[in-house]
């Protein structure tokens, strides 16, 4: 700590640095060694590749949607095609990207390492879960290739059950299968976190990343099956035509809404909670400081998970639910906003008295905090009953959930990927290029989605193929922003691939972070640790790190 510098980056001497001779990547060779692996780190890499693939497919659809909306006239594609575009964009981004993004890649890779375990509790189920994901993804692509599906990702009955002739059954089945992938991931995490912690790793010594995943896993395990049954009922309704959701036969279309949102609201917490975990790690590391109010942040994750189950009806406020019931759900919605506010302020105050550096993950984390604050507070607009009437089903809601999901979750995902990239691959990404990407992403994002808030209050409905001409200016701005955003996402894709071969050797702990995953070699051994560590300090204990002797590092040269 002599000369003050602007970075904590602590790389080994690059002239002599070498990747560890034995690590999980070179432990075995050949495609089959990957496809039949039970190593959580390799499965995480498999997930990373597959979700990146689906992210760019989903992103391509987003691009096409924005391109169509450049002009008010329905000129680029036909209405049916447009409807299929946004349906595919939604289904792929939500079920195949956002839900598994952080948990299945970073969570899978890091949770066992963070709690000092050799693997997840059920490695084979972990692999099964990846295969289920791939099957789900393949079925979705099948539906796409066969002609697509145009239900919207919400599958609203009776539209999806009686009035459409697209590949609803294939897609519903795809979501059913992908859902079980998510159930098994969540189940694996819960058991691992309960049962596999190393000696000394008490609940309140766990990194907040693990807490956030624990909370998200509870939601996955308890929520997803309800989506599964809703999808089965949709399929049966289409096949047999029996009328559980058909009012002419005595059914109730709102029953589907209840079952669907019972999962799909908690699902947004499944998506955002792991991202919050990433931000906790990043903010702590780059301000060299324990997270302000660790316990509050940990419990707020669990509180979000718990309250998250009690608010689903706010998606149905104008759909003909009982007004009294709407009151209860609106009140509970206000309560669930509080833990998120706690987290934001705790992260802010973690910076206070810190020693802050501004590496790429930190820039993404700042982006997350700003955008998520806007996304979260605009959620309060929608939870407030009267306001919801004007805003729901318009571009306001589109902007709101993109602020939370893209501005929040995707920023967190990129923060996490950059943060742990040296750990996962053993190499550094190019710092200045990635900083540029972070800034480009942020600007592109604001430009894309800010105009949509205005459009929403002006009343432009979502899922519109054509729109009145006075909305054009804002739509053009949004499309322009989307172009910049697209560049912002392509850049990491390219330079991260480049860094696999040409990046600087990272060494064990380039960020001088405190997590157990950083105390071992990069990339780690297949068995993570040569010996099971003993946790004898609190999480984010930078004093411990400073006084740690070299031999405490698990290392095989």
């Amino acid at each position, binding site marked *: 700590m002599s000369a003050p510098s602007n970075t904590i980056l602590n790389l080994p001497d690059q002239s002599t640095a070498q990747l560890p001779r034995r690590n999980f990547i070179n432990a075995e060779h050949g495609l089959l060694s990957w496809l039949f692996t039970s190593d959580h780190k390799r499965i995480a890499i498999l997930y990373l590749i597959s979700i990146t693939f689906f992210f760019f497919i989903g992103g391509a659809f987003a691009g096409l949607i924005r391109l169509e909306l450049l002009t008010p006239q329905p000129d680029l594609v036909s209405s049916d095609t447009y409807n299929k575009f946004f349906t595919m964009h939604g289904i792929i981004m939500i079920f195949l990207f956002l839900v598994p993004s952080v948990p299945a890649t970073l969570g899978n890779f890091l949770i066992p390492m963070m709690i000092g375990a050799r693997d997840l509790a059920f490695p084979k189920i972990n692999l099964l879960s990846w295969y289920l994901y791939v099957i789900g993804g393949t079925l979705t692509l099948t539906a796409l290739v066969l002609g697509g599906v145009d239900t919207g990702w919400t599958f609203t009955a009776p539209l999806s059950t009686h009035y459409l002739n697209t590949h609803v059954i294939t897609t519903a089945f795809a979501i059913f299968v992908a859902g079980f992938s998510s159930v098994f991931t969540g189940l694996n995490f819960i058991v691992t976190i309960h049962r596999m912690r190393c000696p000394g*790793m008490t609940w309140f010594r766990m990194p907040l990343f693990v807490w956030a995943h624990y909370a998200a896993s509870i939601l996955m395990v308890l929520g997803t099956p309800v989506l599964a049954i809703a999808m089965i009922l949709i399929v049966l309704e289409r096949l047999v035509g029996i009328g559980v959701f058909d009012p002419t036969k005595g059914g109730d279309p709102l029953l589907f809404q209840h079952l669907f949102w019972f999962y799909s609201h908690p699902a947004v917490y499944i998506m955002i909670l792991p991202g919050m975990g990433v931000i906790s790690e990043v903010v702590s590391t780059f301000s060299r400081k324990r997270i302000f109010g660790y316990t509050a942040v940990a419990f707020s994750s669990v509180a979000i998970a718990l309250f998250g189950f009690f608010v689903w009806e706010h998606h149905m406020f104008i759909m003909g*639910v*009982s007004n009294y019931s709407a009151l209860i759900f609106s009140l509970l919605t206000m309560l669930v906003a509080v833990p998120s506010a706690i987290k934001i302020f705790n992260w802010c105050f973690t910076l206070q008295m810190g020693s802050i550096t501004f590496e790429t993950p930190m820039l993404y984390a700042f982006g997350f905090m700003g955008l998520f604050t806007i996304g979260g507070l605009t959620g309060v607009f929608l939870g407030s009953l009267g306001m919801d009437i004007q805003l729901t089903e318009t571009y306001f809601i589109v902007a709101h959930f993109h602020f939370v999901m893209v501005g929040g979750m995707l920023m967190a995902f990129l923060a996490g990927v950059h943060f742990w990239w040296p750990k996962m691959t053993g190499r550094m990404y190019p710092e200045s290029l990635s900083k540029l990407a972070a800034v480009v992403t942020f600007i592109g994002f604001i430009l894309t989605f800010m105009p949509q808030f205005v459009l929403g209050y002006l009343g432009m409905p979502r899922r519109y193929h054509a729109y009145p001409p006075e909305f054009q200016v804002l739509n053009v701005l949004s499309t322009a922003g989307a172009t910049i955003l697209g560049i912002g996402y392509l850049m990491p894709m390219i330079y991260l691939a480049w860094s696999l071969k040409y990046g600087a050797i990272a060494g064990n702990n380039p960020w001088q972070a405190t997590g157990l995953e950083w105390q071992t070699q990069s990339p780690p051994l297949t068995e993570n640790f040569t010996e099971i560590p003993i946790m004898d300090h609190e999480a984010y204990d930078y004093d411990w790190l400073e006084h740690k002797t070299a031999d405490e590092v698990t290392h095989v040269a």
Partner: protein
Amino acid sequence: MAHEPQHEQHYHDAANVTNPEHASHHIVTPRVYAAVFATLLACTALTVFAADINLGVFNPIIALAIASFKGVIVILFFMHVKYQSRLIKVTVGAGFFMFLVLVTMTLSDYISRAWGLW
């Protein structure tokens, strides 16, 4: 065969302080199983019998009470939850709690729909 559930030869790993809920294993005897089995059969007979008497609103309540009782003893004895760690007990509870949340919160809509005139 049967062991007392606590403090016998099963180890408590001093290093593994992370698992205080660590429960020792308990083998349930066939005699207990047989008693539970007999109770279940008796309850089945009882529920069929009770269904044939007209008790008004109490019919479904009694039927569900008997079914719940049967479910609980299956969970406690056949599924060994009685001898399991608190974690497992909480887990089982959480499952039924979430089911009740699904039912009651959804019913809050259905029940009160008719209250207003809209």
